[in-house]
């Protein structure tokens, strides 16, 4: 049987009679290995899965990637508009809907422009070519005699036909070939421009912009009651007081999952408190001693991998240096707690979610709710910025569990502040040990690096478990899936652990720690923030030992011309003076990385000011230079780099999830402070556009270089190095004592 296998679904809600074709396993469809297609076309091969031309001459673009506040839908719209030769005003974006869009997994890892953008670039070029062919037939000329502008195909004699007029003959329910040439960058009119973000006007005027703003007819409000700490069991709860609160519709209990649904939001919040006070729990295991956490992590069972090996001989006169660095647990700490709206109606569950991956989320909901995939639809709606795997997926299951108890009525659930801080999966604590031999020529002769880390990915769509919080607390509890780590070269905990420098001899050992005393998952950059901190701090330590300027020392070990270019550019921009020493309170430092060793190049220079009496570190200024290949939206790229730097300065100076053996202590913004407006550094970014190079992911490019620049600036200022993050007043005072 070689008949094409694909499912077709009709969705009428909101889009007229849209028909989208989904190709399933292409091997099944074709009975042979299909040709490799670029970007996400590979897994979603039908043109009409990506692009639909409407009779009014507009185009509807479908992407599996979702807006997280990073501006991706604007960038993808630019790419589609460019290739289709349509103005942006005639592009509508549909994103992240298990009922309507391609499955592109998670929107994560700075891969959306590379994967979805490449798919849209190639599909757009192909659809444009198909439209030109149709126009050529209609006008009785050859395709090369036609020009296209703003969705209108014109012949030399002035006759014209618009895309909309060709819709009847247009059949995009066909496999992409990726044979049509996308436009050369020199002829780009929309790509490469700082197009204003499409989502900002609604966000500054109180428009409907977020899942939090969804308001469905008959909608109820839910809240959940989480246990005192991980693994606790709900023995009993007196529901009477909660049920007596006016407006309470249902108390929902399934094993140790406890929640409430009410007519009004404040009623649900009061009922939550009433339940919380009356819930009796058998506490789960104690958390580790926080003062020993790094020893604990190093002592837990791990899967070890040696990577990045280069064999070389170490000269006998080499000097050896060694240093150990640590990074604590850090929170995503979204400003808006996670939120979801769910509706259970006629046996079907619809979940509006700010998950980074609606298809992976659906896979978990199928397991947790014991429903068929066809009975669950997950629709993306924007939330507060997430910066990785926060509570978005968890709250979606919570909302679905509540909605299941009140069929026919949608339930909106927003976590309270302490739910988010106490239960989100944090970025893992890590230990990094670096050791190097410095040859008599002042160059690195040997490099050895080890890191210990839990998983940076316990996201949904586990192959052997259910990776959403409430599933573990049901009467029939499901288990968390095994920890995973993305393979090299991107890596997980070992992301950016292999130096980009040209070293004659090196080994990197990734101790992938399996047991997870504290819940962790993906936080923006995964292991790269900690590894670039350690690696680039150690480069400075080696430079000092070699009596070399930190930038000259880096350049002496780096051949990659694009890497050299960003380092040289940021040095110029910051007015770097070779060999400049700090004065005890002020100093500056550099940090560099190529994100994932395969995405954008970023170098940062930071200035710091240290108040030696209080131990406070201030970062007044940071400069950055960025090479992200072909730039889609310069201002959008600048914004991502700026934001990453400020966020990284916040992580670096302030952030640490505190806990004791009784549980997590981070519960609000007082117990987990972040950088404030008066403390934010001024940031200047220089972009190096490379139109002939493919666009590279950039959303996570600056955090690593920024932490390294700040840590190195502190050492430059004071002559003392802090190897344990964050650089908080207690550490600073101890270092300067």
């Amino acid at each position, binding site marked *: 049987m070689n008949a094409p296998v694909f499912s077709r679904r009709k969705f009428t809600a909101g889009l007229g009679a849209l028909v989208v074709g989904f190709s399933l396993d292409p091997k099944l469809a074709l009975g042979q290995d299909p040709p490799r297609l670029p970007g996400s076309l590979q897994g979603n091969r039908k043109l009409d899965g990506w692009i639909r031309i409407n009779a009014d001459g507009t185009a509807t673009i479908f992407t599996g990637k979702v807006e997280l506040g990073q501006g991706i839908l604007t960038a993808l719209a630019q790419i589609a508009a460019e290739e289709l030769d349509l103005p942006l005003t005639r592009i509508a974006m549909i994103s992240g809907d298990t009922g309507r869009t391609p499955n592109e997994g998670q929107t994560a890892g700075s891969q959306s422009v590379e994967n979805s953008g490449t798919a849209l670039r190639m599909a757009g070029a192909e659809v444009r070519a198909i439209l030109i062919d149709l126009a050529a037939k209609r006008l009785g000329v050859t395709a090369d005699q036609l020009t296209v502008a703003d969705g209108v195909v014109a012949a030399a004699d002035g006759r014209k036909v618009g895309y909309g007029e060709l819709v009847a003959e247009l059949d995009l329910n066909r496999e992409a070939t990726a044979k049509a040439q996308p436009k050369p960058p020199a002829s780009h009119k929309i790509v490469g421009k700082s197009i204003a973000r499409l989502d900002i006007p609604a966000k500054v005027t109180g428009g409907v912009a977020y899942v939090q703003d969804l308001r469905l007819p008959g909608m109820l409000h839910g809240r959940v009651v989480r246990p005192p700490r991980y693994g606790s069991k709900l023995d009993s709860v007196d529901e009477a007081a909660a049920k007596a609160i006016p407006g309470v519709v249902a108390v929902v209990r399934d094993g140790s999952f406890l929640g409430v649904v009410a007519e009004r939001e404040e009623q649900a919040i009061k009922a939550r408190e009433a339940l919380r006070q009356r819930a009796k729990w058998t506490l789960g295991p104690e958390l580790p001693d926080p003062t020993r956490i790094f020893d604990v992590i190093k002592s837990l069972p791990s899967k070890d991998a040696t990577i990045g090996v280069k064999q070389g001989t170490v000269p006998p006169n080499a000097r050896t240096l060694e240093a150990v660095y640590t990074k604590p647990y850090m929170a995503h700490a979204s*400003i*808006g707690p996670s939120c979801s709206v769910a509706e259970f109606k006629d046996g079907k569950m619809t979940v509006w979610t700010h998950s980074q991956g609606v298809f992976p989320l659906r896979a978990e909901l199928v397991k947790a709710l014991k429903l068929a995939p066809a009975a669950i639809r997950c629709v993306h709606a924007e*939330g507060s*910025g997430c910066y990785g795997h926060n509570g978005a997926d968890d709250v979606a299951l919570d909302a679905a569990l509540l909605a299941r108890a009140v069929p026919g009525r949608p339930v909106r659930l927003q976590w309270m502040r302490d739910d988010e801080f106490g239960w989100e999966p944090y970025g893992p604590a890590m230990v990094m040990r670096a050791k190097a031999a410095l040859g008599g020529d002042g160059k690195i002769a040997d490099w050895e690096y080890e890191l210990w880390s839990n998983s940076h990915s316990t996201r949904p769509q586990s192959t052997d478990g259910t990776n959403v919080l409430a599933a573990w607390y049901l009467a029939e509890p499901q288990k968390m899936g095994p920890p995973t780590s993305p393979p090299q070269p991107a890596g997980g905990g070992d992301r950016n652990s292999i130096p980009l420098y040209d070293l004659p001899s090196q080994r990197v050992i990734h101790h992938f720690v399996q047991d997870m005393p504290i819940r962790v998952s993906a936080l923006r950059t995964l292991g790269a923030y900690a590894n670039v901190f350690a690696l680039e701090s150690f480069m400075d330590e080696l430079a000092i030992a070699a009596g070399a300027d930190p930038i000259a020392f880096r350049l002496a070990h780096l051949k990659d011309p694009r890497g050299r270019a960003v380092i040289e550019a940021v040095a110029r921009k910051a007015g770097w003076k070779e060999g400049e020493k700090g004065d005890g309170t002020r100093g500056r430092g550099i940090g560099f990385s190529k994100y994932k060793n395969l995405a954008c190049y970023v170098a940062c220079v930071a200035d710091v000011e240290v108040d030696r009496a209080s131990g406070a570190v201030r970062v007044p200024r940071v400069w950055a230079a960025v090479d992200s290949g072909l730039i889609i939206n310069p201002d959008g790229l600048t914004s991502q780099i700026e934001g*990453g730097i400020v966020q990284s300065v916040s992580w670096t100076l302030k952030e640490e999830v505190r806990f004791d053996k009784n549980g997590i202590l981070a519960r609000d913004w007082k117990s987990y402070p*972040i950088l404030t407006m008066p403390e*934010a550094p001024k940031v200047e970014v220089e972009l190096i556009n490379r139109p002939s190079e493919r666009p590279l992911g950039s959303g996570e490019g600056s955090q690593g270089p920024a932490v390294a620049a700040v840590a190195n600036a502190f050492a430059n200022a004071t002559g003392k190095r802090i190897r344990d993050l964050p650089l908080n007043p207690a550490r600073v005072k101890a270092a300067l004592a």
Partner: protein
Amino acid sequence: MAISLKVNGVSRSVPAEPDTPLLYVLRNDLELNGAKFGCGLAQCGACTVLVDGKAVRSCITPVSAVAQGEVTTIEGLGSVAKPHALQQAFIDEQAAQCGYCTNGMIMSAKELLDRNPRPSEGDVRSALADNLCRCGTHNRIIRAVLRAAQSSGRT
């Protein structure tokens, strides 16, 4: 029971208990999306509205406390079609990533510009010290407020 309040110049009556935080009345009864729930603890500023021109945290302000006052939300400043100078400046500076904090930034900035039409950068930073942003959009927000001050000065 019903309680009355005046929001963006219009008197409204809502079926809420007097101790209901103003935030939920604005969002759920009056269907105004601008003010956001961030912490419920007056720590982050996402829920900021003006009451008689003063920036208050609507998440901890009981609706009964504003029964005599005039509440202004971000919807009361302007619209996509007719944005307020601050809203326009935030668009011009692209001063939002996720934008969840933006309401609080604009409302706190409104209070600042009403009492100090020509703020310095330091004034802006101080005025927004209790408004948290997580995306790192701080520099653009500061520039947007300074731009709004300048553009208001010209008109």
